[in-house]
């Protein structure tokens, strides 16, 4: 009730948004942008391309009922129950990458030869709770 008294009179169509804040944590587990350029790392002398690289990362709290939303196995909920009811030294499920995409890199090797290489799992594209 207090919340409702405090809450501004929200127009009816915004009700689902309003209730969502009670269903899932504010900073829910999701993918965050991160862009770097190899010149920041001073690696641009030997990494010719790409100039910019967006590895992305996963951050946020895992809601208690993670099932369908994150494609989490049942073990994740079991781990949450252990943390809440049995032993809080067992960590809560973590927000981690679930899928990646590759990256193509053009580099100069120590012997002066040039190599184009495609690396697996270099950019996080989806997050999950585990």
């Amino acid at each position, binding site marked *: 009730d207090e919340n409702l008294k405090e809450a501004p009179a929200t127009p009816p169509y915004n009700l689902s948004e309003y209730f969502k804040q009670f269903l899932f944590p504010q900073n829910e587990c999701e993918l965050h942008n991160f862009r770097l350029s190899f010149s920041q790392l001073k690696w641009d002398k030997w990494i010719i391309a790409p100039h910019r690289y967006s590895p992305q990362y996963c951050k946020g709290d895992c809601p208690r009922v993670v099932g369908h939303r994150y494609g989490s196995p049942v073990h994740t909920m079991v781990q949450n129950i252990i943390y809440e009811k049995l032993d809080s030294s067992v960590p809560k499920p973590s927000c981690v990458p679930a899928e990646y995409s*590759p990256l193509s890199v053009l580099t100069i090797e120590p012997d002066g030869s*040039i190599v*184009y290489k495609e690396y697996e799992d270099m950019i996080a594209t989806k997050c999950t709770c585990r």
Partner: protein
Amino acid sequence: PHSRGRVVSDKISGLLVAPEDNTSELNSLLRLPKGVKRGYALLPPLLKVLSDRGHQNWESEVPRLRPDSRALRYMKRLYKMSATKEGIPKANKSHLYNTVRLFTPCSECKHRDLMKGDVHSVDLLFNLDRVTALEHLLKSVLLYSFDTSVPISSSITCVCHLSVKERDFSSQVCPSISHSIAVSLHFEVRKRKWVEIDVTSFLQPLIATKRRNIHMAVNFTCLMGDPQQNTKLENPINMALVPPSLLLYLNDTSEQAYHRWNSLRHRRKNPVRPRQRSSLLVPTGDKENSQGKRASRRRR
């Protein structure tokens, strides 16, 4: 420590080689727990390389050959054709390679042939130390770049004689010729800055045996005119040819390399599963019945 060793991802790509100023930072990341020599032995080979190279300072290593500017231009063009600006490999089914290495010749003893005109032959030595055991050859190409500022008529014909030299260690005589081929090319220089000569079948046996050094003599003669129009091939072009680079298209089978067919297979494994039609499960005896149902369903 053992399980912790397993937690460290073995997917760290060869990309994270320590440059000069991040050595300490990277080292602290890779530094092994005190006295965990056993743990070190369990680390994936790649991490060993990283932690070893973490001690080498990028600049203080032996002076390296700076890449040839033409070769660098060619590889940048190959990169643009193979990946997006953000570095994502293009879903190009035709290209199965996930690694392309370009080698410039270590040494070449150019000697002009006494024959008439400009017969350009050079001895080339390519060092292939950078090719790893898990990189399998798909295609190899000799890459000539033409200095197109020289005014040349539109079409020329070139003949390239290639011979591989085996160093015969038993006797001190100079390397003998092990096998050679002649390749004839006809092309228009005005449109092309690069000429690629496919030498895959020629070099396959050497690269398959993980040969570290390839010593070859290349004799490259270009003449004006077009043999099809049987214009007389005359006055050989006096063209300054830059020694060719060796281009290897490889399939890196290591874990951290991107495998197109793998991602294709992955997509095939989890397609959006089409709904099974119940009639497929009907035993044959009721075939007419099910067809009747199907027809009426379709009509509906």
